[in-house]
């Protein structure tokens, strides 16, 4: 049966501000399906975001929602989760928000392995500000601040989270939406820091300058350029250039931070041990 999204949305806040062809709404619905599947209550769930197109999503979602400063969503979310570990805390962020201005917070939230559920909307670009290049804009692609083509190597976000210590890391696209649903649902059930990076279309600010000027074209791009992680292992580095390696990249049980604090700090302090 189809989910009645309206019970999770602030219907009076719609229509949303996203451009025609934008994929942000596809991920938003995927998140709501996962919330419904795992049975999280609206009152017990906090959704935190930073600044950018993706970070406007919580405003449409009928939960406890916090739209913070640029790059800092994970640090705000850490305070919430640390203070009240019973709350389910979802962080919605973007490629620029999480890995440029918020890069340090991203590394350290991963390292602490605190039970935050990060859904990272990656569209290769700063869309809200009109299309400047981001840490994930591929080499050679055009943006308003790379009019001669981008020379910055792009970030492997999932690899970064995995290396820093996250418990669960998956990557998908809005084209493989059932897979995305499954990854988000799994990430919600993981006791530890989880990241689901989802590639989504920005035809207005990215596609238009890079010969894919519409949403459908960008979906086809995701379809043609996605490589499952198992297959990627057998491919050479140059074959994987600009490909999107999808799948569950990390799924492991590391000690979760708020549990560690409760079991190793609070209990010792209250017994008077150092």
């Amino acid at each position, binding site marked *: 049966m189809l989910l009645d999204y309206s019970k999770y949305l602030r219907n009076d806040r719609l229509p949303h501000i996203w451009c025609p062809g934008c994929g942000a709404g596809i991920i938003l619905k995927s998140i709501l399906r996962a919330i419904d599947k795992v049975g999280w209550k609206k009152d017990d769930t906090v959704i*935190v975001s930073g600044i950018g197109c993706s970070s406007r999503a919580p*405003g449409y979602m009928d939960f406890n929602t*916090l739209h913070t400063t640029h790059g800092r969503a994970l640090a705000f979310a850490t305070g919430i989760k640390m*203070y009240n570990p019973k709350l389910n805390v979802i962080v919605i962020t973007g490629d620029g928000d999480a890995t440029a201005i918020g890069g340090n917070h991203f590394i350290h939230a991963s390292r602490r392995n605190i039970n935050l559920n990060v859904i990272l909307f990656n569209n290769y670009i700063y869309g809200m500000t009109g299309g400047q290049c981001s840490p994930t804009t591929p080499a050679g692609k055009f943006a308003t601040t790379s009019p001669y083509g981008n020379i910055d190597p792009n970030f492997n976000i999932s690899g970064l989270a995995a290396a820093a210590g996250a418990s669960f890391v998956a990557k998908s696209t809005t084209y493989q939406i059932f897979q995305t649903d499954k990854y988000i649902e799994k990430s919600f059930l993981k006791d530890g820091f989880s990241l689901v990076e989802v590639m989504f279309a920005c035809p207005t600010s990215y596609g238009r300058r890079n010969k894919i000027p519409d949403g459908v074209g960008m979906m086809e791009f995701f379809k043609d350029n996605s490589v499952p992680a198992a297959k990627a292992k057998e491919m050479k580095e140059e074959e994987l250039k600009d490909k999107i390696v999808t799948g569950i990249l990390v799924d492991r049980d590391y000690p979760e931070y708020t549990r560690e604090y409760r079991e190793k700090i609070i209990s010792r302090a209250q017994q008077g041990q150092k």
Partner: protein
Amino acid sequence: MSNKRTMLISGNVAVALAAIDIGVDFFAGYPITPSSEIAEELSFRLPASGGKFIQMEDEIAAMAAVIGASLAGARAMTATSGPGFSLKQENIGYACMTEVPCVIVNVMRGGPSTGLPTLTSQGDVMQARWGTHGDHPIIALVPHSVQDTYFQTVNAFNFAEKYRVPVVLLLDEVIGHMNERVELPPREELNVVYRKMPDVPPEKFIPYKNTKELVNPMPPFGSGYRYHVTGLCYDETGFPTNDTAKIAKLLDRLQSKMVKFSPELEQTESNNAEDCDILLVSYGSVFRSSKTAVKIARENGKNIGIVCLTTLWPFPYETLRRLAAGKKAVIVAEQNLGMISEELMKCTTYDRVHHIGRADGEILSPPQIVDKIMEVYDAAGL
């Protein structure tokens, strides 16, 4: 029989003890001299009292975590010094805009930049007021002794919770690191103020109403009151708006807090300030040197009055205008190159305000202040 606790502690430790006594249950910080003892003390004491301590990756994150915890219902604080205070400004602005109660302790060291990590200063008094961008309310308190630091820490939390304004507690390095004998009251004697909770059911709750009271109830995340919090300009519902009329109302309400609550927040002490010729104004550790200087000047026949500012922001303009009226001169003694002196110029004529200060890390001594007093008396022909 009083069960007062008598002990020998530093200002930084007094902050930590007061925090525990007033029920602080969340601290996020980042190490920085000369404030680190506050984090160290609370890393030890908070978990024992059921609270949470977290050392974040930087000062920006620490401020963010404090705001997040406060939204979840915590009585939350951080502590830092000049360079860290600069980094926190972004999210202090967020707390001002979203009206999230929190306390930021800034143990002031010499600046600008890395400056003088271990030496004293009062160089952040203007940054406390205007460090973050845009028109915003802020409260700043400056204790002048270790005992006073304990009580101002208590006040800081009560003000933050009552008015939903971030409170900056400004210690100078001397106050932070100086050990003094203190008598702390029994915990149960403290007046503890909590933020208001809504008296309407969730479906009728409007988070940011423009009421005459100016301060709205603030339910914690997870309490069943679901609402939206944003740093964008917002309307009464908490959602972003571009409607200039609604934005004007929001900014007016935030600004009005500083005006309306200024009399309740004011803490100005004075001695012989009414009938003197010349007034000496100071705050923080400099008040100590000033008291000695005034004693010496009076022994030398000078009829000088003294004012100690404890609530620095909102600034007690009215009180100082009244006290400065009819005086030959006002001298401001401060551990910087003239920051609060400029505020005094708003309270009397420009040429009546004299400044004595230094920012090289050395303590402003009584003899230096006495020399200035004598110089100003001579110039005034008294």
